[in-house]
């Protein structure tokens, strides 16, 4: 190929943009030149890769990178202090009423709070919070509920520290108790309250139904 006079046409042949006479010349040449056929075969796949970039999203703004690096640096600086605080938090949680403890090789922080019923409902239950690698696992277990006719549905919510309402999920299956669980973003300190509502229309994402049970999210593990 290196000595072939038609070699330089192969790039444009693959990308398009050759003059018609050049295209015909390449056609004729390829019939006789195995080396150029092989070369063309290897180049032919490259536009598919270029197409990936053509469809690719814009780059991430630089400020995001700066923020992540700064956060990592802050965490590194606070690691020693954090380790001591972590032990203190575990001790405090044990004294304060931890209902579950994972006997795993690397136990995750876990706490649970009681859910108190709201009139006229007579249900009760627990909400548990477990730190996980991909967020915080929240699980609501509620007893004493009546099944709801469709499209009504029970829906669990979290109230965030910055005054937003986040849906955890819905359930209409009551087998002795109702369970709703999900992994949410952030840590305990990102949330203030947890509750279950009876939504009049489960297909409507808005929070419109009455509260069935509610509880406060603890401040620390």
């Amino acid at each position, binding site marked *: 190929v290196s000595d072939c006079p038609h070699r330089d046409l192969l790039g444009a042949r693959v990308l398009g943009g050759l003059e018609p006479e050049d295209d015909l010349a390449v056609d004729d040449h390829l019939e006789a030149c195995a080396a150029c056929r092989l070369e063309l075969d290897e180049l032919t796949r490259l536009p598919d890769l270029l197409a990936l970039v053509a469809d690719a999203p814009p780059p991430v703004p630089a400020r995001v990178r700066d923020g992540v690096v700064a956060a*990592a640096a802050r965490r590194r600086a606070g690691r020693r202090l954090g380790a001591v605080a972590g032990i203190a938090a575990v001790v405090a949680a044990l004294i304060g009423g931890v209902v579950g403890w994972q006997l795993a090789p690397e136990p995750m922080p876990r706490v649970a709070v009681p859910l108190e019923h709201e009139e006229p409902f007579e249900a009760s239950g627990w909400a548990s919070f477990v730190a996980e690698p991909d*967020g915080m696992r929240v699980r609501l277990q509620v007893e004493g509920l009546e099944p709801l006719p469709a499209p009504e549905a029970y829906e669990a919510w979290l109230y965030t520290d910055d005054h937003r309402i986040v849906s955890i999920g819905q359930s209409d299956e009551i087998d002795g108790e109702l369970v709703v669980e999900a992994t949410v973003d952030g840590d305990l300190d990102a949330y203030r309250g947890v509750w279950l509502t009876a939504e009049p229309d489960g297909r409507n994402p808005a929070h419109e139904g009455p509260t069935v049970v509610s509880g406060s999210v603890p401040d620390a593990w």
Partner: protein
Amino acid sequence: MARAARGDAEAVVALYDVYAGPIYGFGLQRLGDPQLAEDLVQAVMTRVWRFAGRYQPDRGSVRTWVFAIARTAAVDLYRRRPRATPYEHVPEQAEVVDELDRLLRAEAVRAALDRLGAEHREVLRLAYFRGLSQREIAERLSLPLGTVKSRTYYALKSFRLACDELGVDA
């Protein structure tokens, strides 16, 4: 990963440079909002280095682990969008992995293009991304047509080499 878990800035940046782009693109597509896409990158990367010490290689690759975190974080952020929109499809993990793999590959191809010299990048940009003919490129760059043809060929060859070096299969 162990270095990232210790908060080593270089390790954190290395993970960021590989995964932030695809995650941002995933966020733009799934959440439809640049600010939420930025929040997604921040949330995922923060969790990655915060929990890097708990990553277990025998349970899957770093890529799979990061993608699982991205999926959960995206669903969380999706829930936080204005509540006026109805529930939509929550992606399965396999679907997320496919999407992020494609974006990861696109990011590697972009890196391969960045390795090219300016002249090669320019001729590929005009020929492929702008769709100009060889003659139009020659006029645009004030170069002989033969030079443009030759440059286009060598630009593609260099691109293929850069892709090979970065492990991007054609």
